[in-house]
């Protein structure tokens, strides 16, 4: 109990001392944080322009996930091991049937996962709790959605207007890993209902590289880019909300059909809200 009090006090003092120098220390609370409930929503729109022989086509999907993040264990190095438990899932797509919706909701609802979170937001070792419930090749995976919305905080205190850059791996199908480059700017610090909040702009870019083990290869000729905003609860060291809008233009090579679909436009909006 004394350790808990000491951690909370240290955390508060660190924030306060930094503010006195017009700097703010941003850090996740990985030592004493209470369970947090989140709603994650992802809306994906993809469109393919038609030509003289074909009509324009599009897809729209939406997934809404309610989850609870709990601290399992805190480590001496300032990191913590967390569990993200999926409480409910709601899914729709105009390219699938209602029966498929229910099947997807069913397998996503057991995708509880654990991860190690550093105080700067770096997430390592995200693993589905029950390895047997890992998604199959063509099944949806919730972990990358959470990782895309995750802010990475600066290693030292920052002033208003200051920017920082970080990179993180996002784990995809099989053993593939994509390095995502994120840039951040501290735009504002304000009090809201007695809670110190930081408003942070978040940019993101990565290259979509083809999966050479698949006979359907998606490739972006330029960076997939993302732009969004994070509201970080500095007082409690948790995300209040995060939003990321992702834009990509993909060439899709179907080795079986011997066909390449050029310039598939993809837009994704990811919203993460703390609903504690």
């Amino acid at each position, binding site marked *: 109990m004394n350790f808990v009090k000491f951690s909370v006090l240290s955390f508060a003092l660190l924030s306060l001392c930094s503010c006195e120098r017009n700097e703010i220390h941003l850090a996740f609370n990985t030592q004493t944080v209470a369970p947090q409930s989140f709603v994650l929503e992802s809306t994906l729109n993809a469109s393919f322009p038609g030509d003289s022989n*074909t*009509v324009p086509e599009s897809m729209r999907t939406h997934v809404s996930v309610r989850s609870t993040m709990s601290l399992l264990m805190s480590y001496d190095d300032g990191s913590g091991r967390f569990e993200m438990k999926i409480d409910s899932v709601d899914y729709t797509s105009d390219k699938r049937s209602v029966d498929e919706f229910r*099947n997807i909701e069913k397998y996503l609802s057991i995708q509880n996962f654990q991860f190690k979170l550093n105080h700067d937001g770096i997430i390592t070792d995200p693993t589905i709790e029950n390895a047997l419930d890992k998604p199959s090749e063509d099944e949806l995976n919730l972990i990358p959605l959470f990782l895309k919305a995750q802010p990475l905080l600066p290693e030292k205190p920052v002033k208003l207007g200051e920017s920082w850059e970080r990179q993180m791996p996002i784990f995809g199908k099989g053993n593939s890993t994509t390095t995502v480059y994120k840039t951040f700017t501290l735009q504002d610090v304000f009090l809201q209902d007695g809670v110190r909040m930081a408003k942070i702009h978040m940019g993101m870019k990565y290259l979509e590289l083809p999966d050479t083990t698949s006979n359907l290869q998606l490739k972006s000729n330029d960076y997939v880019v993302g732009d969004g905003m994070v509201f970080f609860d500095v007082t409690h060291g948790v995300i209040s909300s995060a939003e990321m809008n992702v834009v990509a233009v993909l060439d899709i090579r179907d080795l079986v059909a011997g066909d390449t679909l050029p310039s598939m436009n993809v837009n994704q909006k990811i919203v993460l809200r703390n609903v504690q």
Partner: protein
Amino acid sequence: MRSSITFLIALTSSVFASGMPFPVAENGKVLLKESDSPYVLEQGVVVAESDTLVIEPGVTVLMGEFAKLMIRGSIKIAGTNDKPVVFSGADSVANWNGFHVMSNARPFEIKNLTVENAFRNTIFRSRGTLENVNFFNNYYGLWIDESSDITLVRCTFAHNRYALSVRAGRVVSNGSSISENVYGLYLETGGTLDGDTDLIRNNQESDIRSEAADLKLSKKRVRRNVWHNIEARF
């Protein structure tokens, strides 16, 4: 408090009392014996590449709502006419996920099996023979993908929504029947079915459909698996 715990234990016992838990591998073999049947599979299980799934005649596996049987190792399901092997949903209302074969180690051998009430059963990058296998009341009866050497001998597909789908592969049908489903055979890109096609009949919406023909008719170009891959990738 003690009565609550007792009630919880009793409730848990009653849920799992209807069968033996699906076994784990021992000495490279996952063996399901008739004497221990029925088995119950509540969630996902993976038969590893190094293991062999062996199922004796007369075995029934009752699948829970979240059950997914993923087989990466060798397969020997040896039901008989008198004693078929049965994979069925434990709950007659809710679908179970399905069985998924991803086994390129050696050809699989599946004989006299009935698969009921699954959402989707798949064979991916594998080869082998299904003999006298009955796919009944599944959403996707059997989905074969990237498998160039699959033989269906006297198999039956009935009361499925989509009975048989083939993509990027070749299936040979020998006396197999696809009847009384909503959709019969669906051929996606690079999928072919050779052999007996005269037993594909009396399906509600269509007996044989081709994705390429559907796309051409509607002046579209993007195949279903392309949309699904974009979604899985993002």
